[in-house]
């Protein structure tokens, strides 16, 4: 028991003293996660609007695929992207395997379905009068899109945060495509796995505490935003 108490104590020490190795892992993780969330959001937003607002023959099929992809296992994405960017893959010449870009590609693919589906639901739930009113006010197609995004902003931010939470805590993609290279592709989750195996439990625990705190912060922000929306409606 003393071992674990001691580990917790040392983990907190590592956090409080801003241990350079801990900081490096957290910074790498945040950089990669923020990049992939940003790229995925840019792609997901118009995609969600397209699916939610347009009538087309394959819409039902696309929605089923999208819903199925919500529970996409990270290792499946990892192996799929691996087959593309590894030396024998289509994009093998670009040397993307075991680089931060490799992880970002995998994470983008992982969370596009999640963010798209969540934003699609938000847009579905918006009042149809929003569009009619925008048209009657003389909004162009682009202005209507902007108004739509503005009206759905709280839901969209919630979707983006959910996507960020998913990539920050995933390990499959980061491990398979990043290779856990120190200072380059070592993220919080891959470092935790490695350091635990190496017996550096306190170090892994410190990262675990940080990951948990970040998750708490993400949920807190999401909750706060939802509350903000509700207050405005009251």
């Amino acid at each position, binding site marked *: 028991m003393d071992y674990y108490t001691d580990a917790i104590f040392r983990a907190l020490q590592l956090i409080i003293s801003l241990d350079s190795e801990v900081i490096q892992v957290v910074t790498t993780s945040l950089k990669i996660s923020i990049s992939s969330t940003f790229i995925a959001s840019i792609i997901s937003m118009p995609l969600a609007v397209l699916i939610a607002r347009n009538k087309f023959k394959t819409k039902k099929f696309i929605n089923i695929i999208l819903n199925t992809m919500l529970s996409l296992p990270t290792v499946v994405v990892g192996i799929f992207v691996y087959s593309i960017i590894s030396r024998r893959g289509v994009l093998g010449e670009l040397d993307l395997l075991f680089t931060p870009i490799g992880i970002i590609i995998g994470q983008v693919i992982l969370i596009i379905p999640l963010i798209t589906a969540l934003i699609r639901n938000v847009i579905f739930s918006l009042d149809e009068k929003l569009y009619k*009113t925008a048209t*009657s*006010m*003389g*909004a162009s197609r682009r*202005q209507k899109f902007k108004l739509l995004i503005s009206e759905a902003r709280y839901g969209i931010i919630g979707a983006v945060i959910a996507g960020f939470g998913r990539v920050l805590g995933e390990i499959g993609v980061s491990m398979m495509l990043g290779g856990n290279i120190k200072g380059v592709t070592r993220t919080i989750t891959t470092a935790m796995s490695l350091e635990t195996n190496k017996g550096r439990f306190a170090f892994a625990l410190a990262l675990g505490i940080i990951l948990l705190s970040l998750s708490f912060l993400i949920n807190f922000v999401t909750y706060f935003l939802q509350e903000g929306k509700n207050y405005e409606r*009251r």
Partner: protein
Amino acid sequence: MKEDKIIEVKNIKKVCGDKTILDIERFEVLKNKFNFIIGGNGSGKTSLLNILSLVDQDYRGELYYKGQKLNKESQNLNLRRKFAVIWQDPYLYRGSVFYNIALPLKLRDISSSQIKIKVKEMAARLEIDELLEQSAHTLSGGEKQKISIARALITDPEILFVDEATTNLDEESIHFFNSHFADLVTDEMTVVMVSHDRRQIKELAEKITLLKGGEVEITKNINNFNFELFGAGIEAPIAELV
């Protein structure tokens, strides 16, 4: 004297699933007049208004603006920006009352100093000056409708479409609307109004069209509304409706 037509529709048909919502051979909107469309529930009044105001383009048939036939591509932004609609149940966007009234001007890239002047002017006319900084979602039904009237009129539209604007309002708001509406509309404005309000029809109507089952039952240009002038054919349905 031949009346000026600003909008004309020919053989308009709107179908939803198996149901024909609208099937109109001919309908005209007279320039600078109050054009009333009346009819019972499901008679196609709002569907017709949506097509005339270019909000709905999912229909078959011909639509003319000042004698020029419009195809769906030519129902462009510039033309839509000459129109404005006051809806029965107005949608106000997230933000302040000022933001909502200013929105059509913002969409037209009007400078913020101009917007400020125009919004204040319009707010004063509709007696909503004190509401400008309030969140639009905190307003009562009557206040929301005033905001939507201000938002529609602020661009000084060539044609103003009004879709049963007083149906969901309380007595006080209806009174305000009826006593102020005619003054808010300029002489150059054409108004297309869907209404059930007996007083509005009596005081404002210059052309009246009765729809029934998606078709034009009776249409008549009038000077002073008088039920007797319409004869038995129209008197009964109008009396029943209003």
